[in-house]
């Protein structure tokens, strides 16, 4: 029976990681669902939905040799696939400021209190080494008004700049 798993892989970035992992999975008869793969710092990170006939240990036996060869750590969990039920975000929130501990925690706590449901978040550290800056890009869903969320962010965060835009999706 087709079972779905989430595989997480992390390791120092090098050429060919995605190709080698996905080829090994293909060779074992697995299929990919949605994935997110990106470089964070000098690390390459992979989160991917994998569908396969067989249990977790079978999947681990497929991934292990490649992961070992590429020096990647990995983790596998059985999941519900839940494909074909995307939520369309209606807010885009950009936050940036001088890097300091707590930006993400502060901003996302305020968002959670404002009943903003994050569908996508990524953050990067930019600027130079002495004066790093932190940039957060968020897509989210909420029934609240933008002004309400802005007020909440204004009250509870300082030293960060943010902008909230509504996303209207045209279906044509």
């Amino acid at each position: 029976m087709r079972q779905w798993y989430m595989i997480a892989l992390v390791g120092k970035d090098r050429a060919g990681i995605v190709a080698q992992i996905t080829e090994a999975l293909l060779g074992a008869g697995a299929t990919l669902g949605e994935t997110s793969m990106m470089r964070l710092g000098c690390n390459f990170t992979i989160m991917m939905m994998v569908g396969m006939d067989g249990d977790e240990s079978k999947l681990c036996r497929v991934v292990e040799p490649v992961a070992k060869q590429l020096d990647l750590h990995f983790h596998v969990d059985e999941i519900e696939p839940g494909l074909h039920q995307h939520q369309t975000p209606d807010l885009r929130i950009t936050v940036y400021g001088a890097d300091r501990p707590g930006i993400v925690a502060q901003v996302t706590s305020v968002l959670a209190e404002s009943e903003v449901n994050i569908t996508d978040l990524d953050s990067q550290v930019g600027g130079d080494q002495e004066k790093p800056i932190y940039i957060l890009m968020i897509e989210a869903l909420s029934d609240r008004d933008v002004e309400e969320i802005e007020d909440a962010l204004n009250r509870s965060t300082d030293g960060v700049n943010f902008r909230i835009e509504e996303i209207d999706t045209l279906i044509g």
Partner: protein
Amino acid sequence: MKIITYPEDILKQSCDPVTKFDQEFQDFVAELESFMRSQPGGIGIAAPQVGRMQRLCIVDLTGMTRGKKKKPVPNQGRLILVNPEITKWEGFELGREGCMSVPDYTGNVIRATRIELTAFDEFGNSHNYESEGYEARAIQHEADHLDGLLFLDRLVSRKTDLFKRKQK
């Protein structure tokens, strides 16, 4: 009538110009329009989306609103666009699009902010139009269908933001 969804081949094919503005064609336009209005969203449709490979699309943003404040969207009402030709593009903006022919996926697409176009109506009369903003986006999306182009052909990264672009 039924919406044809990608990966059906015909959505990637170019449509033929309309040459006969007869009763049969007008009936089809009427049917397509009421079909469009019955769909969720229902602000635009192109003939190939129901399998008719002719250069016809319909756009009508009447009653459409944007955002949580439900701001009305400026529009010029019902536009029957037969053999449309966009003749002028001005400005560009990023916006989120989806398509009845591509269920369960939305993505960012850059479109011209203002356009000028010529098109015939269902009776064969020629018209010139100017359009901007959301309506112009809808027209560009629908007109693309007539050339076998989907918004998938124009996707830009989820992380693309005009804010970033302007900094360059």
